[in-house]
């Protein structure tokens, strides 16, 4: 059965995409002094660990096709407003890939925690390298007046290191799944008990 997103779903996506953005930004900024020069590509994985709970609640509450894609579009639009329109295309691609993971099934898969967790992990794996895509496309020039010299050098080193980029993708994927495990506990402990969400599989 084909179930389309309704207005209430669009509103929920609007609210939760801001929450996901804020959680990622707060965790990212908090980690910046610790990880900026030592392991910057791994920062996104930690962010995704914490934002997984927000995504899973949104996804289970909506339980329809297109939620992750629209979330990625809104996130991309936020980055577009901040001056990086390239991110809209990149996030759209990440969202489509995440949605592709959710396609096989009879429709109940959109309310299953395990499937949504894998979809978010796939989206997250790409999300992790998002910051470096701008370096590949715009070159290193744009970094010059955004970052100080040592951070700029480290960013370029990370961006062109296959080992670090692979580590970023794998770490983001793993941390998203781990975050989803933590999220499943929170969901059952608080939201299902409070009757705000139906028990998800």
């Amino acid at each position, binding site marked *: 059965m084909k179930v389309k997103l309704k*207005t209430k779903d669009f509103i929920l996506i609007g*609210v939760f995409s801001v929450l996901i953005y804020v959680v990622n930004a707060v965790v990212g900024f908090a980690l910046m002094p610790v990880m900026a*020069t030592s392991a910057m590509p791994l920062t996104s994985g930690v962010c995704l660990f914490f934002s997984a709970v927000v995504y899973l609640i949104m996804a289970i509450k909506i339980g329809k096709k297109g939620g992750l894609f629209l979330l990625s579009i809104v996130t991309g639009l936020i980055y577009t407003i901040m001056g990086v329109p390239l991110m809209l295309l990149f996030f759209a691609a990440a969202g489509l890939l995440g949605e592709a993971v959710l396609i096989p099934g009879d429709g109940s898969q959109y309310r299953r925690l395990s499937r949504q967790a894998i979809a978010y992990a796939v989206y997250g794996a790409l999300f992790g390298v998002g910051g470096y895509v701008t370096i590949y496309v715009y070159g290193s020039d744009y970094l010059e007046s955004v970052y100080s010299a040592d951070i700029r050098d480290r960013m370029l080193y990370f961006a062109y290191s296959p080992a670090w980029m692979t580590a970023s993708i794998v770490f983001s994927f793993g941390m998203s799944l781990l975050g989803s495990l933590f999220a499943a506990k929170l969901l059952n402990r608080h939201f299902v008990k409070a009757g705000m969400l139906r028990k998800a599989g």
Partner: protein
Amino acid sequence: MKRRIGFDPRVQLLIVLITGLVSFLGELHTFPWLIGFIALYLAVQGIYKPTLWFLLTAALLYAAKEWSPASPTGLWTIVAFFSLLGLRLLPVLMAAVSLGRVPAGQLIVALRTVRIPMGVLVALAVSTRFLPILRLEQEAIQTNARLRGVSAASPRNWLRPLRTFEYTIVPLLMRSLKIADELAASAATKGIDHPGPKTSLYPVALRWQDAAVLLVYSCCLIALFGYGGLK
């Protein structure tokens, strides 16, 4: 009563997008002009207090940038990083303040004319309005958390990050779910799901001030970029 100039939401969105691009691609030495123009743009709309705060923040960020050593180490690395990033984001944030004050209904009715899909439009309109609400909710939650000794602002609780995160995010998510439900009910009451043609109290038309602000902004940017303001 003071007369304030109001701009069409489409023009306001365009100014945010252009400012975002300029912030990303422009040279930092042109930013005082950019910030000055956006401050003027906000002032003519009667947005005084936030404009003053933004100007003060810009002055502080410039001071931090100037005081940072050329090759920063230790704490100066963080100061240099945040001052540069802050200066990059400040013009966009300033431009977004004006757009953030447009009522959601007016924003939707104006952007519907540029054929943005309804789903994206509703989600985007809600997300632009939700940020200030989120801040208020977070403040209320943290006030309660402080009384119970589980505030995320207390360094003592940073030693238990997962528990502190749980105590912060769970009430925030519960409130967000309620707010989303209330917004959906409010939108349904106003007939957002009605498939027929919609009417609105807000007139959608480009006026002389919209053309004027775009013309002045374009001239400013051309002049700035003409003097090597673009990377």
